[in-house]
């Protein structure tokens, strides 16, 4: 099936099999391997991308569902100049990254939150990343990082 959509600000035009998952399109066809596969059942959040402003599990979505949509992956977050997104800076500063496998999905969930709620409280942050499992950090530093990125929004 043919589909066109916008990914990280760029137009994508591609033919995909009907049963291809959005995750496979992004990783295998487009080569954007920052989006990870951790469970293939929507239970870990490692594959989280943003579609039309909403965080979704790309492992549960057929690729054809991206038709006409605006998609963001972790690769679309930092600028081409290499300048990091405030969330990425905050994750580094707070030590919210250990193995880093959950990190892209975690950051995408957090970004979807900050885009609609620039200064979330702790409860809102917990809710937003409750679909993203992290086995390394115990989460405290992740919550702090998202809070920090949100506080930055106040000044900018």
């Amino acid at each position, binding site marked *: *099936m043919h589909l066109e959509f916008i990914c990280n600000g760029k137009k994508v035009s591609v033919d995909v099999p*009907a*049963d291809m*998952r959005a995750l496979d399109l992004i990783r295998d066809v487009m080569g954007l391997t920052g989006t990870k596969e951790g469970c*293939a*059942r*929507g*239970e870990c*959040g490692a594959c*989280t991308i943003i*579609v039309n402003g*909403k*965080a*979704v*599990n790309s492992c*549960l*979505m*057929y690729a*054809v*569902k991206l*038709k006409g949509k605006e998609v963001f992956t972790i690769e679309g977050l930092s600028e081409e100049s290499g300048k990091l997104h405030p969330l990425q800076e905050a994750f580094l500063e707070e030590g919210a990254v250990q193995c880093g496998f959950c990190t892209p999905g975690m950051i995408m*969930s957090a970004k*979807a939150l900050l885009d609609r709620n620039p200064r979330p409280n702790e409860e809102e942050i*917990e*809710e*937003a990343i*409750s*679909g*993203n*499992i992290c086995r390394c950090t115990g989460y405290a530093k992740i919550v702090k990082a998202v809070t920090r990125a949100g506080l930055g929004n106040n000044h900018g």
Partner: protein
Amino acid sequence: MNYLIPETLDQALRLISSQRNAKLIAGGTDLSVQIADSLISPEILVDISGLEELKGIEEKNGFLSLGAATTIDELVSSSILPHCLVQGAKSIGSPQIRNIGTLGGNICNASPCGDTLTPLIALGGILVLVSSSARRKVRLEDFFIGPKMTVCADNEILTEVLIEKDYLQGRSAFRMTGKRSGQVISQVNVAIWLEAGKSREIEKIRAAVGSVAPVPLRLKRVEQALKGRAVHERLLKEVSELINEEIKPISDVRATDDYRRRVTVTLFRDALEEALQGFN
């Protein structure tokens, strides 16, 4: 596998009645996993998630109409829905799943633990099922005939869920519990809608429990026992016994039957208390 995206409801209806081994897909959060696990192998998927006719929450003809393709997240963010339905919707999966999954999908998936099912039963929900030749209404509590089984025919599409506006009066509450606090499947869930007087006497009540029987269960005898009476500890004891008689929980990987029994009573009492608070 073929993937078809009809542009109108009529097209969708024609497709499912003319094609063999076609399956409707909305959000696909459950279906895609079932397909990946080879539990089902449809030849054709008909994606109805984009159909305008199936979208949105609106008031019409004395009913609140919820389009079947409304996402769970849209239910969560709605300001006009009864409380228990919002609470139930909020309990489903994760934000990512709620952003894709739909109300119609949660209903038609017919899992005994679906978190919108008990609220909709408590709210007297009515399902509108449409085929190319007919349109019929089914009460939610009559829709399910077993785990993953419903009365919906292969050529029918669930288009909307209706809630009588009377149910916007009154108060409702939902409670669930699972193995953990985030991203969790209900071990038990309970929804109650009621109207009551100032001294806690119940005028009208509907209550439902999930995950404690092959289908979500309306607690009719419990409703009867409570109607017209003021809620106090002795009555609650009586009701607890009735609940235990009505439910038939099993032990599975999520909980034992014993735990389900104990917690159903607690969740019921908590939901009842929350709903009653509005009348104090």
